[in-house]
């Protein structure tokens, strides 16, 4: 177990050391809330209605942007090869990286959500639901992202391709995520979202490990 | 031809569109096959053959 947590800690340390890309993603996240009113118009009522959807679009785009960093740095400097032959099974390595990635990219987004809520004139009653929805849904995005990143590791500009591959699969996450914020069936949406996250997080390490192994055969 | 009704344009449009795309698809598949064969013929003309071809046993 200590190898696992050491890997998580390592990834977190590296994320904060290497150019602070995680911070950039949060800026991107907030940026979308800044740009949206210029596209939609400053009508507060309209913005408030669109706010849950806009927050989720911002979260999705930020996660898609960030998924490339899951494996690329390690693949480039050879660490991935070392990790493959380390004591931990590759699936556990992927799981550790998933956890670290969520902590480094998704958690800051969730913390920054109130800022978006204010910019988009979101009804304060929905703030809590929004944070909860993102907390329950971003793991699924990370899980899908890992499969996309593993499949395209080693490809030049693989990040764009991974985003294109993952985006259609992320539609259910967005549907349930937005549904969990407002509307009549918010409760069941949240449960479905949670179920989706749990299942994808359970399966993703295996699929991603398979892709990583296949890519290097 | 039987009467197509008030929405004839949509019916014709659908059939025409499908015909056009299928024709393009068939054309592309055929052209691609032709191009690869050309490449193989060019390589063959340069004397580059598969090692197994010179034996007589079909690969």
């Amino acid at each position, binding site marked *: 177990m200590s190898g696992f947590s050491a890997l998580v800690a390592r990834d977190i340390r590296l994320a904060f050391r290497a150019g602070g890309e995680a911070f950039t993603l949060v800026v991107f996240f907030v940026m979308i809330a800044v740009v949206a009113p210029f596209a939609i118009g400053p009508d507060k009522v309209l913005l408030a209605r669109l706010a849950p959807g806009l927050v989720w679009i911002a979260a999705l785009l930020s996660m898609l942007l960030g998924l490339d960093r899951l494996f690329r740095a390690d693949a480039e400097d050879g660490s991935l090869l070392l990790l493959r032959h380390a004591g931990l099974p590759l699936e556990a390595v992927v799981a550790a990286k998933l956890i670290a990635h969520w902590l480094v990219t998704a958690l800051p987004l969730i913390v920054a959500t109130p800022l978006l809520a204010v910019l988009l004139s979101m009804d304060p009653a929905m703030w809590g639901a929004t944070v909860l929805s993102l907390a329950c849904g971003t793991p699924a995005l990370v899980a899908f992202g890992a499969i996309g990143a593993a499949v395209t590791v080693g490809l030049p500009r693989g990040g764009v391709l991974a985003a294109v591959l993952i985006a259609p699969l992320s539609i259910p996450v967005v549907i*349930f995520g937005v549904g969990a914020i407002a509307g009549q069936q918010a409760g069941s949406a949240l449960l479905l979202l949670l179920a989706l996250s749990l299942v994808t997080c359970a399966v993703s390490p295996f699929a991603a490990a398979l892709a990583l192994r296949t890519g290097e055969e | 031809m039987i009467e197509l009704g008030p929405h004839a344009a949509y019916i014709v449009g659908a059939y025409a569109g499908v015909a056009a795309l*299928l024709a393009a*698809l068939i054309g592309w598949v055929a052209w691609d*096959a032709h191009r690869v064969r050309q490449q193989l013929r060019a390589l063959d003309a340069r004397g580059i053959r598969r090692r197994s071809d010179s034996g007589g046993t079909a690969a």
Partner: protein
Amino acid sequence: MSLDSTAKKPNWFSRLAHPGEFLRWSGPWILPLSLLTALLFAIGLWLAFFVSPGETENVGTTLRIIYMHVPNAWLSQFVYGVMAVAALGTLVWRHPLADVANKAAAPLGAAFTALALFTGALWGRPTWGTFWEWDGRMTSTLVLLLIYLGIIALWRAFDDQLRAGRIAAIVTLVGAVNIPIVKFSVDWWQTLHQGSSVLVTGGPRMAPTILWSLAVMMLAFTLLFLVLHIVSIRTEILRRRATSLARQAAMGADA
């Protein structure tokens, strides 16, 4: 003539698996299958325009579009099924031609899916008033198209086509598992945003002439896919040969 007089006639599996064998036996089939396809299309079109009724209660006078829409919608899913089986062939059984089958099928599947959306839109406009509807079926078809396009992009991104084949197989299977989830989530989402009409492609009690015409058309389209698929597989086998020969030449191997 075989040098080895004791060589067995290749069994059915190796006829499918060995590229050279596949090339040999598939060649003679292309022309007969193509002619059969053309014949079925001719019969189908005649049935669609001269035998089938021009309208029903459900859809009105635009009924004849069904003969273009349903076969393409069927193929969009059938081709993905073929690709999924091929993906299993690559990953589980290590079948040598499975990845070629996957690669060859992807552009075909994308084309049929695009046609399904196109014909669906043209059917929807006069019949139900709108070109597009965010309902479960149309949205899932759109997502399917995006998945097809993603797989095509994936194939093109790799230099090493063998590696690409295994990766594409994984993506195909992940997509296959996800499509039902997407369909479910879109249906759920649809029930939230009531008000849009639910598209119905003909009721269960369709006249026999309609069913027969549809059956012929679907057979014609399926055969068309089969012919195009076989030709594309052959082309891909030859393409890989050409690539490795060119590489051989570039390395200065003796001619």
